[in-house]
């Protein structure tokens, strides 16, 4: 069976959930071969094997952390030459998309980004994408070279499927471009203790209607009662009420959770672009005419400062 390269997104060997989802998708089109770059391969290999990786190619070098993007492209290119894969799958993070694009160009291949589903087709993998702020669903394929496809988080279930997971060293030679962009300093983001926004099953968001940084505790309390991630509209972020890393929308994170709860958010097209593919959508807004209500499965027209705390109490009571 054809091999499919899966780029592993991890933090020091802790594999992030979107990579495990890619392994599920990879198994639909071939045998997953994971590529793990940087430290922690031993920890990662076991998890990758449990989820279907027949092989884990690893390389570690200071270049991966000290320079932007290109060293990882050099490594993936080496992996693609070693394996001749039927496709290369990369998680759709900002970095993942850059890696995928450069790799595709080097392999003389087309690139598809932000796939939300992947199936085997007669002439290679078929990717489902949402276009124009999710108003359209398209089916695309790469018509030249090795398909390089980035896939959005939450596009497939994580399924255990034990495989060999044989670890092999990958020989990488860095090209002249690899050391072009130096990372002079890195400040790790403080963990909030809440689920990662793009991976969370439930996202609770606040917008301009939250009316102040201090009021975001109302949103956070609801999120915590549901075990959810906290999102924000750009209006709330621009006002400085919540960090940009929590922004949902076209220029923020694109989320596709089981449940999205929008509070005090009007539903502008750029916000919708980042949440419209959520399975169930709920909104609280005091304006019955707010466009967000066009999207909802359940909406409450009312003041969020009345509705949200009551909902939080109710959730806590029901969960016991």
């Amino acid at each position, binding site marked *: 069976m054809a091999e499919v390269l899966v780029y592993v997104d991890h933090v020091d060997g802790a594999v992030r959930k979107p990579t495990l989802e890619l392994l599920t998708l990879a198994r639909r089109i071939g045998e997953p071969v994971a590529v793990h770059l940087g430290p922690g391969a031993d920890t990662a290999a076991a998890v990758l094997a449990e989820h279907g990786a027949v092989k884990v190619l690893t390389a570690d070098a200071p270049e991966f952390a000290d320079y932007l*993007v*290109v060293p990882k492209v050099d490594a993936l290119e080496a992996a693609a030459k070693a394996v001749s894969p039927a496709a290369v799958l990369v998680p759709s993070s*900002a970095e993942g*998309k*850059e890696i*995928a*694009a*450069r790799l*595709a*160009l080097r392999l003389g291949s*087309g*690139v598809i*980004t*932000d796939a939300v589903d992947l199936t085997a087709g007669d002439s290679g993998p078929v990717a489902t994408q*949402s*276009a*124009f702020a999710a108003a*359209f*669903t*398209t*089916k*695309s*394929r790469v*018509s030249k070279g090795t398909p390089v496809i980035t896939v959005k988080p939450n596009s497939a279930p994580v399924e255990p499927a034990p495989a060999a997971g044989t670890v092999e060293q990958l020989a990488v030679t860095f090209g002249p471009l690899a050391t*072009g*962009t*130096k*990372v*002079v300093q*890195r*400040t*790790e983001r403080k963990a909030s203790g809440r689920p990662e926004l793009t991976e969370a099953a439930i996202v609770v968001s606040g917008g301009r209607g939250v009316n102040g940084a201090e009021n975001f505790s109302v949103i956070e309390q609801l999120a915590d009662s549901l075990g959810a991630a906290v999102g924000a509209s750009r209006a709330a972020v621009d006002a400085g009420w919540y960090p940009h890393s929590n922004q949902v929308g*076209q*220029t923020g994170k694109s989320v596709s959770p*089981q*449940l999205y709860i929008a509070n005090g958010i009007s539903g502008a*097209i*750029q916000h919708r*672009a980042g949440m419209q593919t959520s399975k*169930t959508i*709920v909104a*609280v807004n005091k304006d019955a005419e707010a466009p967000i*209500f066009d*999207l*909802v*499965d*359940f*909406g*409450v*027209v*009312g*003041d969020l400062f*009345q*509705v949200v705390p*009551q*909902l*939080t109490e*109710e*959730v806590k009571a*029901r969960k016991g």
Partner: protein
Amino acid sequence: MSLRIVVAVKYVPDATGDRHFAEDLTTDRDAVDGLLSELDEYAVEQALQIAEAADDAEVTAVTVGPEDARGAVLKALQMGVAKGVHVEDDALHGTDVIGTSLVLAKAIEHIGYDLVVTGMASTDGTMGVLPALLAERLGVPGVTLLSEVAVADGKVTGRRDGDVASEQLEASLPALVSVTDQSGEARYPSFKGIMAAKKKPLESLDLSDLGIDPAEVGLAGAWTAVDDATARPPRTAGTIVKDEGEGGKQLAEFLASQKFI
């Protein structure tokens, strides 16, 4: 020494309009008015600020697209860019991102550059990969997704706010940078700027000017194929209740019925 800055700007259908695909599954550009991608306004702004901070610098805006895509360059000229270049050719219809990056790279080499500035993503294709492809093609460092950027002493520095960390980056010129919408509000064209733009040079180029074989671009030359585009079915109308003191409880009831609690 003059600093040559080229800013890539895309003309896109207005996102607040009813955007569609045409019969050949390319963007229907006739259905909705176009404009300069709002995210490229940030690129123009940063290009202008970098030029203003330099002793001697010139900014050129370049776009690849059909006739009305000139509008994107015109807006950049109105904002303060000195020169414009529009690559237009019938053979370009349906070009994918790989082909677009080829045309842009050739055009940028034709113009001559020390620094290329782009937006973070277009507001129609929204792939966010063109900057990386351009850097790869031009063979220069890519310093991408910057929320802060500065150029001094032949070096570009900037801050990239990522998922797990915020990074301070540095590269030597020539280089490519892409900037996010966190990089600072874009200026509005002044009346003077709008009048001045009419007299600024706006060069038109076609594929033969750039030495590109038409077979490498367009729908036929694309390395990806869209086989199907379906409008998302309208969501079935949801239940909407007015809060009369029990809104939170009603919402909880709904969430429970859907097994979320």
